[in-house]
């Protein structure tokens, strides 16, 4: 039985035994590099042989790989730090807005501050989840939607309410920050609208679903509340929340359909 890869490669075994051992050493070092163990080096005999040349090349390659790996890890750490700081700064802005609202009893002003805080928080959550994820470029939508929904729900803290959130979100759907920010803001607006207007009796259901539709995704946010007022036209209405949903859908390159049948639904195909 052939005992080494090099014997298999050269079945006639014309390689001198010492060269065979050296070739195996080169192979072992390469395999160590593949395991990201860059501490190993090929020993050089300084005999001007081809194997010495290969060994020197492998050693240098290992040094380059080691430094590239370190550099990549440092960059990842830096990116995490940036996401962390962005999130912290957004939270500071949110807290400052909160402090501002404490100085007034004007409910309209307090409501506007709350809306702004929720918008900021929806973006901060993207950054928070990014630095907590293994893949710094993408986050899983399911976890994000559930976390954001409960955060928006808490912010409205409707007393004695009996609201249920129902999720039907495809698992393992990941988006990058360019998609997550508009998706988060859309969710925030749609859920906030439902919580503010759909349930005057404080009871009902909110549904959020995300399904793959061939090459695209369909995000559906709906409630079983009282629906829009009869004369309300979402396309012409100047309410900031709805306008934002239209704008953000455009940003996603998607198509929005808003319906008011047995509650309100926002269907976004993007």
């Amino acid at each position, binding site marked *: 039985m052939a005992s080494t890869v090099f014997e298999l490669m050269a079945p006639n075994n014309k390689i001198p035994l010492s060269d065979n051992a050296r070739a195996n050493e080169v192979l072992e070092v390469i395999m160590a590099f593949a395991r990201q163990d860059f501490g190993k080096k090929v020993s*050089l005999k*300084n*005999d*001007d*042989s*081809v194997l*010495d*040349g*290969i060994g*020197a*090349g492998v*050693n*240098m*390659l290992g*040094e*380059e790989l*080691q*430094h590239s790996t370190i550099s990549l890890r440092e960059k990842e750490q830096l990116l995490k730090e940036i996401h962390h700081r962005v999130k912290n700064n957004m939270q500071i802005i949110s807290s400052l807005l909160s402090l501002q609202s404490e100085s007034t009893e004007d409910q309209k002003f307090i409501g506007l501050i709350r809306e702004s805080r929720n918008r900021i928080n929806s973006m901060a959550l993207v950054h928070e989840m990014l630095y907590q994820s293994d893949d710094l470029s993408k986050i899983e939508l399911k976890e994000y939607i559930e976390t954001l929904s409960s955060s928006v729900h808490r912010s409205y803290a409707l007393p004695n309410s009996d609201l249920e959130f129902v999720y039907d979100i495809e698992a393992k759907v990941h988006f990058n920050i360019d998609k997550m920010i508009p998706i988060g803001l859309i969710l925030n607006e749609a859920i906030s609208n439902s919580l503010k207007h759909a349930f005057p009796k404080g009871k009902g259901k909110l549904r959020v679903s995300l399904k793959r539709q061939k090459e695209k995704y369909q995000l559906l946010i709906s409630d079983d509340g009282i629906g829009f007022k009869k004369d309300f036209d979402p396309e012409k209405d100047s309410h900031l929340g709805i306008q934002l949903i239209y704008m953000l859908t455009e940003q996603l390159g998607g198509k929005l359909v808003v319906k008011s049948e047995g509650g309100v639904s926002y269907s976004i195909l993007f």
Partner: protein
Amino acid sequence: MVTFTIMQIPKDAIELRGYFTWMGKDGIARTSVKPGIDITLEFAMENTKVVTSFFSDKKFPILINSRGIKSMSYEARRHFSAQDRDTKTNAFAIVIGSTISRVLGNFYLGINKPAVPTKLFDNEEEATKWLQQFLN
């Protein structure tokens, strides 16, 4: 152990731990690695200091005899690539001969990407001829 022909080293050449270094009468600086040596960053910086001392007002080319080198550390290779420093040289001609110097030279050119025009040569005559175009 393999022996290598090294350049004619003049009496006024400066002997460093890893190199012999001098300025040629033709305006081309020369440095010859000591056979069987492992070049570290310390040795590389020592050499650069001497090469830089040849500078008066014009940048000059340098001929490097690397035949007989045993190894060069990552840090030394980075240093010689002159990427992050103001080098007083305007071209490198590297004379290679041994297998290791050949691998090192090619690696240096392909991976470390020196900041000034650099070429590998099998002999000193061709290297000198190429460097003459960089004389001011």
